[in-house]
């Protein structure tokens, strides 16, 4: 079951962040960026679908990707607190994306290395999913980095909005890099990555982007945690009420 749990976590991050980004659709600061955010949302939701489908397959309880995506209780979702944070303004959105992509890209890359040579079918499937995803996340990382720099080094207003975003979101940056029992088990089974090992690279990358953006890491660096274990922020229940509405209101229907 470790593999199942491990995949679900990856998928939950993608679904919930994809959901948040999808809230921008039609409301972006200008058309080109409206489309860019929708693109990223589509990538992430696409990744989550492939992962839920894989999880459903290995679980062989006859669940579908939608059963897993829509019909769990709040505490069963294991996404990071970072990805469920509200969109805020565009500064918050691009910073949240930068933090997440700085974790997700090295994670996927490290997983791909571990999966090399593994021949069991579900590992091969996962490798295929991650290979495609790496290309997508590379773009998400570049897009968000460019915007953080542009806004940090843009006007006085955009700089001050970036500072506010950093002060509010930095506390959610670190959870991704704290391992727990599921990570440990996945590491011992050969495909999992110890997130602590990804931290130095991510920190250095954020440092570099912040320098170019004239932004500072906050002094208080206590990191909020809990999402990975299903203890979410108060925002999560509202998000799930929307996400699950149709499946809850019309149980057992096909769409």
């Amino acid at each position, binding site marked *: 079951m470790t593999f199942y749990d491990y995949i679900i976590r990856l998928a939950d991050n993608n679904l919930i962040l994809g959901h948040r980004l999808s809230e921008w659709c039609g409301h972006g*600061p200008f058309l080109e*960026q409206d489309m860019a955010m929708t693109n990223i949302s589509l990538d992430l939701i696409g990744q989550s679908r492939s992962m839920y489908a894989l999880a459903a397959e290995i679980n062989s309880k006859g669940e579908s990707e939608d059963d897993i995506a829509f019909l769990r209780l709040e505490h069963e979702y294991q996404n990071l607190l970072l990805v469920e944070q509200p969109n805020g303004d565009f500064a918050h959105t691009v910073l949240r994306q930068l933090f997440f992509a700085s974790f997700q890209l090295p994670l996927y890359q490290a997983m791909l290395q571990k999966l090399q040579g593994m021949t069991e079918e579900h590992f091969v499937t996962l490798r295929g999913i991650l290979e495609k995803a790496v290309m997508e996340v590379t773009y998400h990382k570049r897009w968000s980095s460019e915007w953080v720099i542009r806004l940090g080094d843009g006007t006085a207003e955009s700089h001050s909005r970036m500072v506010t975003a950093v002060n509010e979101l930095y506390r959610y940056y670190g959870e991704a890099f704290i391992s727990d029992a599921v990570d440990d088990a996945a590491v011992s089974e050969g495909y999992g990555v110890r997130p602590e090992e990804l931290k130095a690279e991510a920190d250095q990358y954020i440092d570099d982007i912040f320098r170019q953006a004239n932004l500072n890491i906050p002094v208080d660096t206590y990191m909020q945690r809990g999402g990975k274990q299903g203890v979410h922020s108060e925002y999560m229940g509202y998000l799930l009420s929307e996400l699950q509405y149709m499946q809850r209101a019309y149980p057992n229907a096909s769409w």
Partner: protein
Amino acid sequence: MDTTKNLEEIFQSKIDHEIKIEPKDWMPDAYRKTLIRQISQHAHSEIVGMLPEGNWITRTPSLRRKVALLAKIQDEAGHGLYLYSAAETLGITRDQLLDELHTGKAKYSSIFNYPALTWADMGSVGWLVDGAAIMNQVMLCRTSYGPYARAMVRICKEESFHHRQGFEILLTLSQGTEAQKKMCQESINRWWKPALMMFGPPDEQSSNTEMSMKWKIKRETNDELRQRFVDVAAEQVKFLNMTLPDVVWNESTGHYDFGALDWDHFWNVVKGNGPCNKQRLDARIKAHENGAWVREAALAFAEKQKIRQQSQVKTA
């Protein structure tokens, strides 16, 4: 010799010979104005049209539907982009066009002033609203202004995909539970007549049709297009085992009759009294205003980069 008259003759003869008018060609002022009005109205419709369906993105019943709906709405944003670009070739900027939308000077298709209340509306909008739009737009692929015609060719391909996708949403509902079937019929009932009014007022009341036909901006009249749409939809609805309100086969004309349309209500919606006019416009204005600092920052940053590059070139 009267040069303007001569230019006009050249212009009309190009039109008559199906030669496209290009941005640098001479064109009558009224032709330019008509096109700017029509293309911008079309572009605004794409953008405002993102809102009713956008209302359902976070509530789709499945992930497959979520991805499809997001991609569809993103297509509409892309259509808006091509069309704003086509309008810009006529000597107006996107900022000016948006300003006209936000101040209420420019119009957009009134259909988007109706609310999307149920999941079935995602089907009805695709099938009926995109469907009606295609009827209009297929003819615009052959419109006389080159950049508009070329934009429309790309757009039409995607619109017919939306049309099928919408129908497929309804087809799934029509084969589902009793609650789904009810949702399906209720939605069709609500969207049918507003969709018919998308073709514009009856020909005898349409002020723009005659000149637009002469210039081949439009190539078929409102009533001709509307009847064709009714005849097609009346056949398609049979596959859903649903009905279209007030639609009956007329043996003597060989067409489907569709009953009276409430043009008073239509003009009220156009004037701003539709159920969602205020919300749609407010949402667009809010997005634009909330985005102002982002656009300013992007400009300021680009300016700084330019200066940095120039000083690098100098010191090198």
